[in-house]
């Protein structure tokens, strides 16, 4: 009975797992293999030569690579911090509402559901001035609309996640604290924050992993410009692959991105414990 059950379990899971293995895991392994070759589709006469780790060496000694990494890390740090802080404030505010929660929730879900490309285009439009592109011409100022667009899109979603966590906290805890004369701030730091920690952690992890692969919003807002001032690592890899058609070198970049994200994800899953699962970020 048990043995048969276990086999049936595997059989039921098999089709989906096979699909994932074939088209998700397979390509990752292929990328590792490909990254050891010189493979330039624009110069087919060079053929496809095994060059060992030279693609990796090239990446690590390329300033544009390091700049792209820097942009990605800075973007992730700033936008995720803003999103968690604002999302928490928003969640607490909505949690204390007695009426009209449905309307607010729809308003909150909408930005999250809007295609990222649309978010980027709309925010670029709002920062566009008819005379010239003041914001987008400056290497540092160009980040402002990008971060704002990302914060606008994701903060409400973070708030929705945190709101679900808030609504799981026993009301009686607050009542007891109130009896003891605890201030609102004391209640927030003493009850809300500690009990919300798992939900906060989940939001933090998913937003961070997601911020590291930022591409769409920057592609439509600045195209990585001015120059390469707003180019994240995903966009650098994109241009190496699809503009320069350097597949060996591009694969090396992909493998490094994959490796770092995978480590991040593993740490995250460990941190959250097995039970805490949530949907993958958009």
């Amino acid at each position, binding site marked *: 009975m048990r043995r048969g059950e276990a086999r049936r379990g*595997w059989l039921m899971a098999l089709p989906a797992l096979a699909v994932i293995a074939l*088209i998700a895991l397979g390509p990752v392994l292929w990328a590792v293999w490909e990254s050891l070759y010189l493979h330039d589709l624009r110069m087919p006469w060079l053929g496809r030569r095994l060059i060992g780790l030279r693609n990796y060496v090239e990446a690590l000694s390329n300033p544009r690579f390091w700049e792209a990494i820097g942009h990605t890390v800075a973007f992730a740090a700033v936008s995720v911090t803003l999103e968690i802080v604002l999302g928490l404030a928003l969640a607490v*505010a909505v949690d204390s509402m007695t009426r009209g929660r449905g309307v607010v929730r729809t308003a909150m879900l909408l930005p999250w559901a809007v295609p990222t490309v649309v978010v980027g*285009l*709309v925010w670029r*439009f709002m920062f566009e001035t008819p005379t010239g592109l003041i914001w987008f011409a400056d290497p540092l100022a160009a980040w402002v609309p990008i971060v704002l667009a990302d914060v606008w899109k994701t903060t409400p979603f973070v708030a929705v996640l945190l709101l679900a966590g808030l609504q799981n906290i026993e009301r009686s805890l607050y009542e007891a604290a109130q009896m003891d004369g605890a201030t609102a701030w004391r209640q927030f730091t003493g009850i809300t924050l500690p009990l919300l920690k798992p939900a906060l952690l989940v939001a933090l992890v998913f937003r961070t992993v997601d911020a590291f692969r930022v591409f769409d919003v920057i592609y439509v807002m600045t195209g990585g410009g001015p120059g390469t001032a707003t180019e994240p690592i995903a966009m650098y890899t994109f241009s190496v692959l699809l503009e320069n058609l350097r597949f060996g070198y591009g694969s090396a970049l992909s493998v490094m991105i994959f490796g770092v994200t995978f480590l991040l994800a593993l740490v995250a899953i460990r941190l959250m414990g097995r039970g805490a699962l*949530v949907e993958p970020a958009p």
Partner: protein
Amino acid sequence: MSWRLLRPWAIAMLVGVTLFPLYWAAVASFTPESQLFGQSALAPTRLVFDHYRAVFNERSLGTAVLNSLVVAGVTTLLCVPIGALCAYALARVPFRGRTLVLTSVLAISMFPQISIVSPLYLLLRELRLIDTYTGLVLPYLTFAMPLTIWLLVGFFRQLPREIEEAALMDGAGQLRTLWAIVLPLSWPGLGTTAILTFLYCWNEFLFALCFTLGPERYTVPVAIALFRGQYQVPWGQILAGALIATLPVALLVFVAQRRIVAGLTSGAIKG
């Protein structure tokens, strides 16, 4: 006390801030190009349908809408049944290695799309699938399948166990129980999962940008991201396209917001 009085206003303001960009985009998409950046940008004196007419007649956005519908629809139809089978096994059938499988699926759902663009491109090129529907559906499965499994595992875990146990006790097999007992109870969960999967596919940009070559196969996000004017950015048309891209997902959110929230948070709060 004062917070109590201020609260409705604070929340109204937040909702306003949230909706403002969408309002501006919507208004602009009906505004004549000459008034887009003027004094009356937020409340134009005249509304026109020019931009909408132009995106369909000159930019063939209709083709892009069709492409998006086909690719997102087919991916969803493939993912939900196969994913449901797997998710049910992961949620209910005790088998060895279950946790490992769950963790791997979660890890895969987190990995960045860009890291598999190069092998997928080479593979699709080899199979002559670049710039085809199949050439988009296959890459879409990489993120849609883990997503479906995750959402459905969360959902199946919330179903009352007793009914299934009674059926199993009566000698119905695992598959038979799934078909006759669980499935009829699961339409809300399957529906929500289908909606969310469709939504992610509809919004996807990077793969569609990499694996299509021209307007014949562009999906909606790629089409509007690549609108170009001869001398200036055709903002009116871009925003009209943006509104059209947003309309279906906005409708889905209105129809299913309660369920979407439940689906998204079912795992997060159980801890």
